[in-house]
């Protein structure tokens, strides 16, 4: 299992509760869950990396447990009961070895390592997404149905740092409904991009006094379910419930290109950190990897269950051929020797975590 899991470049959580790893270079997919114990309650609803080295995957299940999967060992190492509030997890994040969870009913909790008491923040009802800032790990953004974008600083959990204001009434002077489905921080800035079930894409800038979006654009006419910023953060990839995926420019709000080949609703999208690649999964049970520049479908993997969440490694050798992978495997074997050596001080072991 360890040998298999180490080279998986995409991790996917499914509706049946199975954690799947896909090795894109070898075109192989593995299941890392035991079928006999699975029930619908273990449906994966959120996923995140356990650390910056991407050696652990945290899997949030609908029944309120967070499982820790070790990529090196290829198995689940820890089960943690993080229940509280109602509904499935809408976001998981890790900051300084403490775990941040948020459930649908709006209870955001910070679970400190080895400490039973938690910080609890009520962020409002019907949360659809919680995501952490990439540059400042203690900041999280939250949005949901009739729950407009809020940014919380977890060091001062009393009040949100930023509260968005709904856009102006429409041409009939009616209130515009709010339903954020997905959001993401722009890297190295406070800006947040959101997508809504009313097919709008909005960009908020908390550094300005204006609390309304600085940019708004819309795409097609079905609810947008997932979004991901491209590596250069100039554009955003959005997907909707009918399987239409588009790249939208964030400077002008223009539609740049559409990606094809989807059959059903897109549940998760993620762009590679440096390469022009986007991985997507959804209800049509396929993992697809597109090239963002020429729109080509590079990989299409059938994974047998409806897929909920997705994590893409930031390694750059995702698509490289067998030989190169083997080379690097040897390197890792060297690393193994180093890893197997007894550690002298405690400091090193804590760093490893």
């Amino acid at each position: 299992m360890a040998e298999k899991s180490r080279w998986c470049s995409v991790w996917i959580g499914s509706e049946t509760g199975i954690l799947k790893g896909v090795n894109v270079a070898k075109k192989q997919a593995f299941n890392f869950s035991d079928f006999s114990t699975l029930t619908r309650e273990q449906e994966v609803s959120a996923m995140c990396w356990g650390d910056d080295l991407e050696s652990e995957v945290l899997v949030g299940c609908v029944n309120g447990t967070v499982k820790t999967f070790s990529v090196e060992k290829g198995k689940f190492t820890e089960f943690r009961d993080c229940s509280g509030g109602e509904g499935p997890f809408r976001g998981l994040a890790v900051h300084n070895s403490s775990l941040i969870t948020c459930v649908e009913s709006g209870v955001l909790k910070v679970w400190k390592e080895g400490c039973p008491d938690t910080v609890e923040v009520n962020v409002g009802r019907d949360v659809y997404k919680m995501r952490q800032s990439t540059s400042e790990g203690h900041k999280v953004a939250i949005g949901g149905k009739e729950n407009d974008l809020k940014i919380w600083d977890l060091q001062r959990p009393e009040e949100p740092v930023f509260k968005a204001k709904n856009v102006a009434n429409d041409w009939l002077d009616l209130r515009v409904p709010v339903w954020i489905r997905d959001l993401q921080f722009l890297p190295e800035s406070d800006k947040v991009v959101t997508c809504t079930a009313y097919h709008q894409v909005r960009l908020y800038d908390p550094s300005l006094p204006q609390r309304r979006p600085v940019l708004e654009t819309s795409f097609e006419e079905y609810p947008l379910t997932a979004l991901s910023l491209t590596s250069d953060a100039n554009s955003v990839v959005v997907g909707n419930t009918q399987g239409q995926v588009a790249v939208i420019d964030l400077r002008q709000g223009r539609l740049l290109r559409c990606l094809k080949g989807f059959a059903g609703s897109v549940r998760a999208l993620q762009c590679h950190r440096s390469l022009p690649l986007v991985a997507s999964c959804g209800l049509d049970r396929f993992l697809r990897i597109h090239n963002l520049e020429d729109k080509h479908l590079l990989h299409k993997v059938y994974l047998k269950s409806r897929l909920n969440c997705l994590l893409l490694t930031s390694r750059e050798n995702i698509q490289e051929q067998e030989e190169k992978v083997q080379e690097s495997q040897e390197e890792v074997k060297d690393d193994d020797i180093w890893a197997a050596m007894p550690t002298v001080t405690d400091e090193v072991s804590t760093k490893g975590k």
Partner: protein
Amino acid sequence: MVASDNEEMDFAEPQVKGKRKKKDNKAESAKKHLKEKDAEMEKLQPTSNGDNNTESCFPPTFSVSDIKNKQRRHFMFMKLKQQKKKEKSDLKKKRKREREALGDKAPPKPIPKTIENQRVYDETVVDPEDEEVALDEGTDEFSSYFNRLTNPKILITTSDRPRGRTVRFCEQLATVIPDSHVYYRRGLALKKIIPQCVARDFTYLIVVNEDRKVPNGLVLCHLPNGPTAHFKVSNVRLRKEMKRRGKDPSEHLPEVILNNFTTRLGHSIGRMFASLFPHDPNFIGRQVATFHNQRDYIFFRFHRYIFKNEKRVGLQELGPRFTLKLRSLQKGTFDSKFGEYEWVHKRHEMDSCRRKFHL
């Protein structure tokens, strides 16, 4: 003139070669015929050129449609057609003779190519021993029916103010599906009907849509948690319009036959149809409802059978008959605005290959 003729022959050659390629898989004797044909083509071409007197601007490939004289063109075309027909029948006769000469040793007849047996490989075709699909299906929305926890109860309604055939179609559908109740729509919104259905323990909601008095759409919504399938309905033949039809169906619970639902999507659709009918059919009634999938079209037929002796079975169609084509499969109960689709038929993207099937 001669030079240009030669040139023409050079260009005409690949055309014939192309034909040869197509016939490659046929018996070798065909080649002989082609050679004869080549010779005939040679004969044909100078005459046509002579007629037109336009050697310089004449396109290099010869075709009958280049002849400008209508009578002449017609004549040549008829000739060409007759010649082709003759060749074909000769070839057929020859093959038959060969087969007869070989007798029992004759090679088996080649299987004709159809777009179904040339189907593009589909990785989603379900392997019956697949653990993961079994797990998925064992816990999905239909599992309570297949674990015999619930009995189907169906509500049939139409679009608002149904007229003509749609009304009769609904009535006849209700005689096919046991424990189904036809209700007048009364202008109600589907989203308001669904909670009421759930409260009254209905497991299915069927909505027949019509266009100009003809049923053209069917929404099949599984309750309480979905999924919802949307079909196009065509070729509806009601009981009255059918020839050699049996007596009206009896109250017995029919058997169900589901054919060719092989892919993962097909499985979901097949399970959906299966859970429309109660468990344990009354075999004494000898009635069968068939959902036959062929090239992504689902054909519905309703029959009564009888075993005449050990070998022969008599079939009697009871009607109605219709054809369904899946348009979309949506997760959850009917919600066309915010519902998430598991599969949507996208014509321009998905129908680019005729040999690719989804069910």
